């Protein structure tokens, strides 16, 4: 499968298109807010599902929409389980402190360090398992041990090299996330050498103070372009058209919107952000979609997502 038909190569790039409207999302979130208050917060899980259903349903790729299949009940149970895990951990910590004294604090840090990749892994598995396009589910099939060892190893090397290793660390994590992501029976592919990033990374560090941190917008755009330039699905490559200026303007204008409206513009901010992301990520080349087949996986619970929420860490792919 190394040769691609000439017709496919010449085909126009296919974009994700986002159709969501700030006003509609605002309406959904206002009703969600009321129900959340009245139920003393319990409804927030169902509220999340409503928002996600809307956002996924408004995301189009070559004429068809994505769909979110999560349920409020499973998010609620996942959050309860994560809460239980954290309480259990604190109880164990208190016992450990009584037995071995303040060394227990070290255990705490170690546990949090392990919990982060564990939670990211769980959240990723859950999020992909509840996402579909054209009725075909996504899935994440990575190995948990590999996730934790890659994460902890990379973290350690980054610390030891005073941050120099960071481009390799994040590229290895990216490779782990993308190469284990499947759409139906077909995996995504990511192959890249972090050497490409090191120049920009060192430059960004050097220019941090002179540019008052603004240089990091350009580095973030570079990383996004790098990530997608090395990602493929069924031989079809992706391309990102992020620019530093674009990201900077998006951030500043969003910040202004939130401040001026005292936060009421949050739905519009979310939609502008998604629109920028989708407008600037495209797939080049054609995929024979009939070859992509459903490939049902074992059911995944939402504990990982709950834990990631509890630890206040975002999704793995950002």
């Amino acid at each position, binding site marked *: 499968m190394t040769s691609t038909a000439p017709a496919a190569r010449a085909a126009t790039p296919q974009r994700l298109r986002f*159709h*969501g*409207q700030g006003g*509609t999302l*605002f*309406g959904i979130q*206002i*009703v969600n*807010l*009321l129900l*959340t*208050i*009245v139920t*003393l*917060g319990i409804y*927030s*899980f169902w*509220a*999340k599902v409503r928002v996600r*259903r*809307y956002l996924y*349903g*408004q995301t189009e790729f070559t004429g*068809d*929409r994505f*769909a979110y299949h999560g349920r409020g009940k499973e998010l609620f149970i996942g*959050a309860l389980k*994560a*809460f239980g895990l*954290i*309480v259990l951990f*604190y109880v164990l910590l208190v016992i450990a402190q009584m037995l071995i004294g303040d060394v227990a604090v070290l255990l705490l840090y170690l546990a949090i360090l392990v919990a982060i990749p564990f939670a990211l892994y769980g959240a990723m598995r859950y999020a992909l398992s509840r996402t579909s*396009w*054209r*009725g*075909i*589910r996504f899935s994440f099939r990575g190995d948990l041990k590999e996730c934790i060892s890659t994460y902890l190893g990379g973290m350690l090397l980054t610390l030891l090299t005073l941050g120099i290793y960071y481009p390799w660390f994040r590229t290895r994590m990216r490779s782990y996330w993308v190469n284990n992501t499947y*759409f*139906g029976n077909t995996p995504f592919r990511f192959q890249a050498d972090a050497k490409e990033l090191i120049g920009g990374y060192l430059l960004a560090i050097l220019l941090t103070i002179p540019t008052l941190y603004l240089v990091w917008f350009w580095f973030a755009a570079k990383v996004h372009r790098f990530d997608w330039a090395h990602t493929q699905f069924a031989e079809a490559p992706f391309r990102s058209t992020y620019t530093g200026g674009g990201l900077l303007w998006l951030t500043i204008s969003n910040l202004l919107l939130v401040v001026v409206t005292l936060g009421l513009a949050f739905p519009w901010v979310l939609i502008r952000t998604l629109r920028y992301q989708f407008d600037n990520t495209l797939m080049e080349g054609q995929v024979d*979609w*009939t*070859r*992509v*087949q*459903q490939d*049902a996986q074992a059911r995944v619970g939402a504990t990982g997502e*709950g834990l990631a*929420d*509890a*630890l*206040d860490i975002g999704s793995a792919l950002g």
Partner: protein
Amino acid sequence: MQRLWSGRYLDGVSAGTVDVEIGIGREALRIAAPAGVMIWRYADITQTQGRYAGEPVRLERGTQVPVDAIIVDDIAFLAAIHATAPQAARRLHNPARRRGRPLWVAAAAVGGILAGAALYLWGIPAAAEAMAERVPVEWEEKLGDTVVESLVGDLKVCEGGAVRPVIDDLVARLDRAAPAHPYDFRVTLVDDPTVNALAAPGGGIVVFSGLLQDTTRPEQLAGVLAHEMQHVLQRHGTKSLFRRMSNRLLLSLLVGDLGGATATVLETAESLHGLSYSRAAETEADVRGMHMMQGARLDARGMVEFFGVLEKHDGPDPGPLGYLSTHPATRDRIARLQGLADQSGYRPVDLGITPKAWKAMVAAACGPHD
């Protein structure tokens, strides 16, 4: 002949799509694909997309993966279904109902604000009060110890010398004037120029030497002690703790952040640093403290006098840590206390300490200073 609607069929097996023509029947949809005709009964259909503007209609059949689905871009398809099969297809979204949405949103906004305000103003305080009343005293004491410990920090605690027996005597007199209660009052005197006094849950009271040295007679100290003892007796600290905890819990639940909620529950003791009470709690401590002064037959005017002393000493700006910053000496507060003190109508006990002797005692309370 009925109109046929064009749509796409997803078989749930491959990511390819098949163009289909859909006819609307009374009990079912008739879906004509190149491979053959399918009949989907409305009872087996769930609608997963097409409730909002800009979304195509998506109808699914079955619940276990793989489910198959049909997609129709034209929203009029739904209206046509409702026109033909209003009963059988009643679970499907009716686009006609969208018109009422802005009204719902406006109602929800008003309702949300009202519900939030009601919860914040009445619900949480009532719940906090109910919870605080059920907390065992040992728990309050333990909590209070943590608070006192963190407040005192590295400051030097002083025994108090000749003032100590007077403090103990005043506390004992005031205590006897209070109705029966389970608390054991312990006054900690710290060597610090800050003019302040605080009460922690469970009976711990902290008096800064700065405040002690500002008093010109023991009855003024008795006034401060009576006020702080009432904070303990009325469980103001425990109530405010529960209240703040519930507020934070509610806030973090609102933004769907259970992690924050978890942290709130686990970090209770840490949020205790700022022990400031509501105005209602301060008034209650004033009035009940004054009654306690009178019950103990102490000179009730001492409680009012102290504000005068503070004003003279600190001027109008008490600074962020001063007694007046946590106990604002508003005009109506002083007037109320003055009114209560004037009604006393009894002969106060003579503590047998002259202002001059008191001044010497409080100056030496924490040992000699440079």
